[in-house]
């Protein structure tokens, strides 16, 4: 019983999530606000960095299709960062523990919720590659496994303080969705502490608007 529970927790922590966060762990003592939307849900996360390897946040998510919300405590761990002269790579694990609530015409009772996942990225001044996944267990609100891969490049190199522009394409996969795989081209802008992404899911014809602000 204990062994199967541990195995289940292990799989949840290591196989999950669809957060597209830039820098999910900030500098020591730094705070970040992240808003993200995808073809299914919209979320807001605010996190505080306790150490260069750990941040803790509060996250709220609204599933627009199923009409339920999830509120969680959201820890993120930096497992490994690779440094080079011209590149940086990161591997994160994260999770969430909280409650799911039905809203609007969803009258299901509150249910405890847990999710976990991996985020990994590698980038240079001009190229970007990332992978993320999430497994969510939300009781009678359902369980899902989502993963996505993103590739991007910048048409020009900016220096400190410039407006930076990146062109990106994301392919995400949700096995239980009507369209299991979708593609979303997007543009990422960032300057100083603000990052904005604007995209459009070509498969489900849904807009994507994300922003991140580092305090």
């Amino acid at each position, binding site marked *: 019983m204990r062994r199967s529970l541990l195995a289940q927790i292990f799989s949840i922590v290591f196989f999950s999530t669809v957060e597209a966060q830039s820098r999910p762990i900030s500098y*020591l003592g730094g705070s970040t606000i992240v808003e993200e939307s995808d073809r299914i849900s919209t979320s807001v996360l605010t996190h505080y960095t306790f150490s260069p390897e750990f941040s803790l946040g509060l996250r709220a998510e609204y599933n627009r299709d199923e009409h339920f919300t999830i509120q969680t405590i959201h820890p993120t761990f930096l497992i490994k*960062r690779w440094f080079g002269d011209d590149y*940086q790579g990161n591997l994160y694990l994260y999770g969430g523990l909280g409650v799911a609530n039905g809203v609007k015409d969803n009258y299901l009772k509150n249910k405890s919720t847990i999710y976990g996942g991996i985020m990994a990225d590698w980038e240079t001044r001009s190229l970007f590659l990332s992978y993320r996944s999430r497994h969510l267990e939300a009781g009678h609100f359902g369980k899902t496994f989502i993963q996505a891969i993103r590739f991007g490049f910048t048409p*020009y*190199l900016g*220096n400190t303080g410039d407006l930076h522009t990146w062109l990106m394409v994301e392919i995400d996969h949700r096995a239980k969705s009507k369209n299991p795989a979708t593609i979303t081209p997007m543009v990422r802008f960032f300057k100083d502490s603000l990052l904005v992404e604007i995209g459009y899911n070509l498969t489900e014809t849904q807009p994507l608007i994300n922003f991140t602000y580092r305090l």
Partner: protein
Amino acid sequence: MNKSLRNLLLIFLYLPAVITKAADIGEAPHPGGHHTDSNQLNEITQSEGSPDRKTGAFLTRTSQIDSAIADGGKPLVVDVLGVVCDFCAIALTKVFNQQKEVAASHIDLNKKTLSLVLFANSDLTDEKIADLAVQAGYRISGVRRGVRPTKPTS
């Protein structure tokens, strides 16, 4: 995607780059901290050879850097690994600017360096600098000290 829409999208994407570069060319020194391409290169920014990744690091001059040096500050340059993204590297300036020893700081993505000016009667050891870089999520490969002060730009 039809041709007009594609052309409009390309204009939209390249317009920020054009505006940014035009602003750099026509920019007059101001307190905002943007780097300045000055003809009055001082002994810090000149070298016996061209700056390259190995010899790296020359002080990146901004109005804040120049002002801090003119006030008697001590410039130094830190070579930083993995500085590939401005949005992430801003953490370095945030961490270092919190230190009471630091009068000015600037990250240069092209040179992969952090330029610092310490107050005249202050110092930061190499170990402390390395630790602060770790707090910001980075690693350093060297600290260059002993540069002579620049001439005042005014």
